[in-house]
């Protein structure tokens, strides 16, 4: 019990302290900077990501239209002069269109010139002409000025994505087309409109006709199945595990199993779906019902874990009170515990659904990656979903598809943000501290 050593040390410490403390505070500031720098790095990358998506996606929400003088030549459309709708529907609108283009664009008489002219506008123009005639047969034989959708290349040219100063061989629009387009521009026959097509059609090989409605409907059908399967099953198993299950080996196994299932790579669920649902049960490929089932198995652990946490947060005193009143255990759970836990369960479910909405890999395994031009009508129709649509378009080389990929991502992110926002609001509104 001598105090010499400690006193010695204290004496030495006094000498070194000032310099040492400065050094220690420098280390402190440096460490703090590392932390801040890490956060800034993450936020910076997030910003770059969002900026690159938004800046490349925004142009897809507008589209270019050009005003053409279309001649509804009676000889092509209605050679017999019969005005019979069935006959009119099968008229030679392409012929009429070509004649109009020849009149419109000098130099469109040659084979090559004709192809250039046709490539100026979307190939849906013939259908537009047909619909106009069917709506009003009296326009046959007249020339109308009609705003029609330009082709994707001309759209890119109008938006400035194609550099007009490039040599002809390096650009997707040749000099002749450029000349025609600049003439239209001079005559004020080019305008930019909101791209409604993007929201009203399904996929297409032609970028200017491709839309996301098919994928959105596919996603909705798939998610509906996922919700219908995973929500009841998830809540029921959470209720069982949290409220009824005896604590034994079997429930331990289930618990460990659920936690691990939550971390199994999603593509493995795709393999399961392929082997079991498609090959064993011979369910249809590419169908929302199968996609929904696979995603339901995938989101099940998320919902169970969230529901169990919500049930656990309900204080035991509530259960004791109900049991004390003579309620059975099931009545206790359904009348008291479950309603109190519901906001937490719903929040977990929405978050699980948001995950399912963004999931791609397992759906590739069960063939929801096909090129589908129809909007799916039922749960067994071939369909695709939004993220898979993104994946498909991301593969296409055209600049116009890059634009649309980013735009589809923006739509997807909007849905996700809305779902998460809803979950946050739900949690805020019903959050309860016991």
């Amino acid at each position, binding site marked *: 019990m001598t105090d010499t050593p*400690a*006193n010695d040390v204290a004496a030495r410490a006094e000498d070194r302290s000032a310099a040492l403390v400065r050094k220690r505070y420098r280390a402190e500031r440096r460490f703090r900077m590392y932390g801040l720098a890490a956060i800034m790095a993450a936020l910076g990358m997030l910003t770059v990501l969002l900026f690159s998506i938004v800046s490349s996606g925004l142009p897809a929400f507008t589209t270019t239209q050009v005003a053409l003088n279309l001649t509804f030549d009676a000889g092509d459309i209605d050679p017999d002069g019969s005005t019979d709708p069935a006959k009119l529907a099968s008229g030679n609108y392409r012929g009429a269109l070509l004649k109009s283009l020849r009149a419109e664009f000098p130099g469109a008489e040659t084979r090559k010139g004709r192809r250039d002219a046709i490539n100026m506008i979307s190939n849906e123009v013939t259908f537009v002409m047909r619909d106009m005639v069917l709506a009003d047969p009296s326009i046959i034989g007249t020339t109308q000025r009609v705003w029609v959708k330009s082709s994707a290349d001309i759209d890119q040219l109008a938006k400035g994505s194609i550099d007009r100063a490039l040599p002809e061989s390096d650009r997707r629009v040749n000099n002749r087309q450029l000349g025609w387009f600049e003439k239209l521009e001079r005559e004020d026959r080019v305008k930019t409109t909101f791209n409604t097509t993007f929201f009203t059609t399904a996929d297409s090989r032609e970028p200017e006709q491709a839309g996301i409605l098919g994928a959105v409907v596919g996603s909705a059908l798939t998610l509906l199945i996922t919700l219908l399967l995973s929500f009841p099953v998830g809540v029921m198993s959470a209720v069982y595990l949290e409220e009824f299950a005896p604590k034994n080996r079997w429930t331990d196994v289930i618990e460990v199993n659920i936690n691990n299932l939550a971390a199994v790579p999603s593509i493995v669920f795709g393999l399961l779906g392929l082997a079991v649902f498609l090959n064993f049960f011979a369910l249809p490929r590419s169908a929302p019902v199968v996609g929904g089932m696979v995603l339901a198995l995938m989101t099940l652990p998320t919902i169970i874990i969230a529901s169990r946490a919500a049930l656990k947060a309900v204080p035991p005193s509530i259960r004791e009170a109900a049991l004390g009143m003579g309620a059975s255990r099931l009545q206790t759970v359904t009348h008291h515990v479950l309603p109190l836990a519901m906001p937490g369960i719903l929040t977990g479910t929405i978050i699980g659904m948001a995950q399912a909405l963004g999931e791609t890999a397992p759906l590739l395994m069960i063939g929801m990656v096909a090129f589908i031009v129809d909007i799916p009508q039922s749960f067994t129709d071939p369909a695709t979903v939004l993220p898979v649509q993104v994946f498909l378009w991301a593969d296409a080389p055209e600049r116009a598809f890059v634009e649309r990929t980013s735009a589809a991502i923006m739509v997807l992110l909007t849905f996700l943000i809305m779902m998460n926002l809803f979950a946050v609001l739900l949690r805020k509104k019903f959050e309860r501290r016991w």
Partner: protein
Amino acid sequence: MPEENTPEEMEVTVESNEAPGATQAPKAPPTKVNARDVNVYYADNHALKDITIEIPENRVTSFIGPSGCGKSSFLRCINRMNDTIDICRVEGKIEIDSADIYDRSIDVVQLRAKVGMVFQKPNPFPKSIYDNIAYGPRIHGMVAGKTDTDELVEASLKRAGLWEEVKDRLAQPGTSLSGGQQQRLCIARAIAVSPQVILMDEPCSALDPIATARIEELIDELRQNFTIVIVTHSMQQAARVSQKTAFFHLGELVEQGNTELIFTNPVDKRTQDYITGRFG
């Protein structure tokens, strides 16, 4: 409140000043910590009101009072541990050796090396026993080299009366010790940086009676070299270990003075009620 409070305190101070002179009191020890008009707020809650107290050097001073009376809050002011709580605000003046510790020029890190603290629950770091003791000296640059550290660890453990029990297992984690041993380890850890003041926040509340007795002995031994301030729930403990006692109630310092006097002849009605066990 202050108008009501001051006369009482005056009275007590007078009494406690009288007491040493009247009974034995060879010499009054110098004041180590001097707090004047300390107010503490947690957000809008006024937790401590105009606390003025002098803590004598090389003595044990105990703070007693019912739970939530602010005695721990005041203790944490003395080494500025309240700085770690965002909503906490401290007003007034606390001086150690006549230097205001809330002055801008004072560095918290150095202050805390000078004012050690032992907590309610033993909180050894998740490191070996050896590293637990060596931690403080190392960060403060008080040791150079292994032999130096070894010496200091041994000295600190010996002072805390733990050396004989742990000398063969210094490499084991600090958490492997029993509760009482852990608390003595924390005391050894605190004295390893040779502080001048040691604050103890209910150091025995998580311990059994035998371990408590061991710690109390230790406190009595340490008194020779350190100024000790102890917050305690147990009046018996205050009576056993301390020379000076201060009674806190609802954020006020109701009464302070010589321990024997406070326990045998309290002035304030509230102190009397607390000591006789009418509330607490």
